[in-house]
C-alpha cells in the first residue's frame, strides 16, 4: 500500500521501508530549533542528563532564534537570552541569531525558511507549537517540549507516533481578490473544531494549491496546531523549490504522497466559493463570516506574528489602509528583520508600506513575537485590560494576548485592515471591490 508524504518522511528517517499510522518509531532529526522561552530550560535539562561538558550531537543541525521576549525590561527574560548566548558560544553553534546584532532575525517560524532550514523531505523539531509552519515546504515539522528538545540535543533522535493523515483538497484556479489563506484555515478549523485534527497530519493539496504562494501555504500549515494537528504539509512543487533554492545550497530530496496512500478523511473546498472568515472570542474554531459580524465594535487592530506578519500580509493590509485614516489604534509588527526591511522597500501605489502605515498613524513595532502571546507587561501592543482587538495572529483563548478581560477576534490582514479603517468588524469586500472599480 502507498504512503502519505508524512509517512514516507518518517519511514526514511527511521530506517524503515514503510510505516503505518500508530507505529512508534525513533527518527533521526535534521534540524532542532529553540528560542528564548524554551531554550534555557531545554539547555538545563540537557546538561543535567548528559553532563555539564556534554556536546550537542551536531552543531550544524541546531538552530537558536531568540524571538519571544526581546524588547522588554523584564530581568528574567533578558537573563534567558544571556543563557542562549552563552550556550551558543560554549558549543560553537553556527546558527545562533543573537539579539542586538545584525544577525538578529525575529520570529523563528519565518526566520527558519528565510535562512534555508525548511528543506523538503527533512525532519524539523522545534520547541514551539507553530513549528508546524515549516510543513508548507514539504518538511515534517512539529512542536515539542523542553525535555524532548534536550533529548535530541544529546542523541539526535526522538520517538514519534506515526499520525493518520487528513487530506484537504482545494479546487479553483485562483484565490478571489478578497480572500487570503487565513480565511481558508479559519474556515477549516471552524469546520473540524479545535481538536478536529488531534494526533493527525493535515495535508493540503489539489489543483487550488497552485494559486497559493509560499507565504499563503505557510499561513495554512501555521495554524494546523489550532485544530490540534501534529503537523501540516503541502507537497513540494516548483514554487517550493524556487523558494528553498534561493535560501540554501544544501541538497534535499522532495517526497510526495503516493496516489494510493490511505487517508483518515478527505475534505474538498472550492477556493472561489470561500469568503472572509473571523474566529470570535475565545476560541479559534468559534467561526463566523466577516459579513455576519459587520458592525461589531473594536478598540484595537493588530497585524503581526508568524501567522499574519509576513511581507504579503503587510502588502495586503497596505492595499486597504493606503490613503485612509484609522478609527482605532493599529499595531504593525513585522515577523522578522528581513520583513521589516521589506516594509521600507516594497511599494503600494508609489509609497512604501512603511509610509502607508505611518501616514495612517499606525504604531510600528520591532521584529519579534510581541503581543501575539501577551508576554511581559511592557510588550509592544499587549492587551493590558478590556480591549476588543481584531488580530492577524493565531489564538484567541482567554488571556492569550495579555489580559483575560480582553477579547480577540482572529481574521485575515485584509479583514483586520478594513476593520481598522472603520473601527468595527468589516468585510474587506467593501474596500476591495471599490479598488477594482
Amino acid at each position, binding site marked *: 500500500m502507498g504512503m502519505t508524504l508524512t509517512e514516507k518522511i518518517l519511514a526514511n528517517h527511521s530506517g524503515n521501508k514503510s510505516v503505518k499510522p500508530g507505529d512508534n518509531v525513533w527518527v533521526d532529526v535534521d534540524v532542532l530549533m529553540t528560542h528564548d522561552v524554551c531554550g534555557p530550560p531545554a539547555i538545563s535539562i540537557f546538561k543535567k542528563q548528559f553532563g555539564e561538558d556534554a556536546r550537542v550531537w551536531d552543531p550544524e543541525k541546531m538552530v537558536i532564534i531568540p524571538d519571544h521576549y526581546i524588547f522588554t525590561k523584564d530581568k528574567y527574560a533578558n537573563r534567558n537570552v544571556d543563557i542562549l548566548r552563552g550556550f551558543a558560544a560554549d558549543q560553537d553553534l553556527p546558527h545562533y541569531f543573537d539579539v542586538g546584532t545584525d544577525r538578529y532575525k525575529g520570529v523563528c517560524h519565518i526566520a527558519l525558511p528565510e535562512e534555508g532550514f525548511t528543506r523538503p523531505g527533512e525532519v524539523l523539531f522545534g520547541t514551539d507549537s507553530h513549528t508546524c509552519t515549516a510543513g508548507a515546504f514539504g518538511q515534517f515539522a512539529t512542536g515539542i517540549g523542553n*525535555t524532548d528538545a534536550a533529548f535530541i540535543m544529546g542523541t539526535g533522535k526522538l520517538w514519534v507516533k506515526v499520525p493518520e493523515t487528513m487530506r484537504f483538497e482545494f479546487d479553483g484556479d485562483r484565490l478571489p481578490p478578497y480572500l487570503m489563506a487565513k480565511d481558508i484555515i479559519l474556515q477549516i478549523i471552524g469546520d473540524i473544531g479545535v481538536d478536529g485534527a488531534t494526533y493527525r497530519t493535515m495535508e493540503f493539496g489539489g489543483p487550488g494549491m497552485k494559486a497559493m504562494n509560499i507565504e499563503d501555504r505557510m499561513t495554512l500549515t501555521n495554524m494546523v496546531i489550532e485544530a490540534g494537528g501534529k503537523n501540516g504539509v503541502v507537497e513540494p512543487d516548483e514554487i517550493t523549490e524556487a523558494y528553498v533554492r534561493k535560501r540554501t545550497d544544501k541538497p534535499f530530496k522532495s517526497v510526495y504522497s503516493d496516489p494510493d496512500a490511505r487517508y483518515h478523511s478527505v475534505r474538498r473546498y472550492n477556493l472561489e466559493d470561500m469568503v472572509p472568515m473571523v474566529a470570535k472570542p475565545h476560541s479559534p474554531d468559534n467561526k463566523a463570516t466577516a459579513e455576519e459580524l459587520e458592525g461589531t465594535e473594536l478598540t484595537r487592530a493588530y497585524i503581526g506574528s508568524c501567522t499574519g506578519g509576513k511581507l504579503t500580509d503587510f502588502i495586503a493590509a497596505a492595499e486597504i489602509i493606503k490613503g485612509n485614516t484609522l478609527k482605532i489604534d493599529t499595531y504593525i509588527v513585522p515577523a522578522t528583520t528581513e520583513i521589516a526591511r521589506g516594509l521600507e522597500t516594497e511599494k503600494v501605489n508609489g509609497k512604501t508600506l512603511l509610509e502607508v502605515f505611518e501616514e495612517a498613524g499606525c504604531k510600528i513595532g520591532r521584529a519579534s513575537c510581541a503581543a501575539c502571546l501577551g508576554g511581559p507587561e511592557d510588550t509592544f501592543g499587549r492587551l493590558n485590560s478590556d480591549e476588543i482587538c481584531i488580530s492577524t495572529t493565531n*489564538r484567541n483563548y482567554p488571556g492569550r494576548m495579555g489580559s483575560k478581560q480582553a477579547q480577540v477576534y482572529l481574521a485575515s490582514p485584509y479583514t483586520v485592515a478594513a476593520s481598522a479603517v472603520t473601527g468595527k468588524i468589516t468585510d474587506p469586500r467593501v474596500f476591495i471591490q471599490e479598488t477594482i472599480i
Partner: protein
Amino acid sequence: MIKGKAFVLGKNIDTDQIIPAAHLVYSLEDPEERKFYGRYALSGVPEKQSGLPKGGIPLVEKDKFESEFTIIIGGANFGCGSSREHAPAALEIAGIKAIVSPGYARIFYRNSVDGGFVVPIESVEDLSETIETGDELEIDQEKLELRNLTQKKTYKIKDLGSVADIINAGGIFEYARQQGMVA
C-alpha cells in the same frame, strides 16, 4: 493509587490559561524562581470557570505556592495551544499528581509523559460536569477506575497504552536508559 481532592475545569483549557505567557520567564531549576510556576498555575482561567461547578476558586490561594487540590478533572482537548513544557511543570509544582480528561492536546500530553510531570489519564466520558471541585477521588490504574468517594460513584478510565512504559520509568530519559539508548 493516586488519591486527592478534585479541581474541575471545562473544555479547551489551553496552555495560556494553565500558565500565562508573562510568567514563562522564571527558571525551572532555581528553587526560588521555580516555585512561582506553582503560584501562577491555572491563573489564566477566567474566574467563573475556575473550580467548577461553582467557579471563583483559584487552584492556588493568593500568596501560596501549592494547592490543596491534587487531581484535575478537565473537559475535552485539555492542554491545547502552545508547546510550553512549563504547563505540565507548573501543574506539578503546584502539587497536581494527575489529570483526568476525555482527551488531550498532543504536545501537552507528550510533555506530561516525557518530562514525567503529571499522569495524563483519559476518561471514557467527560466527567467535568459530574465531579465537583473538592470531591475526594481515588484513581485505581490497575482496575482502570476512578472512584468519587464524596459522591460514591465509580467511573471507567482508559489504559495508558503505549506510553505506560515511559510513565512508569518516570520520563523519556529514564525510559531510554532502561532501553540502553543513552548512557
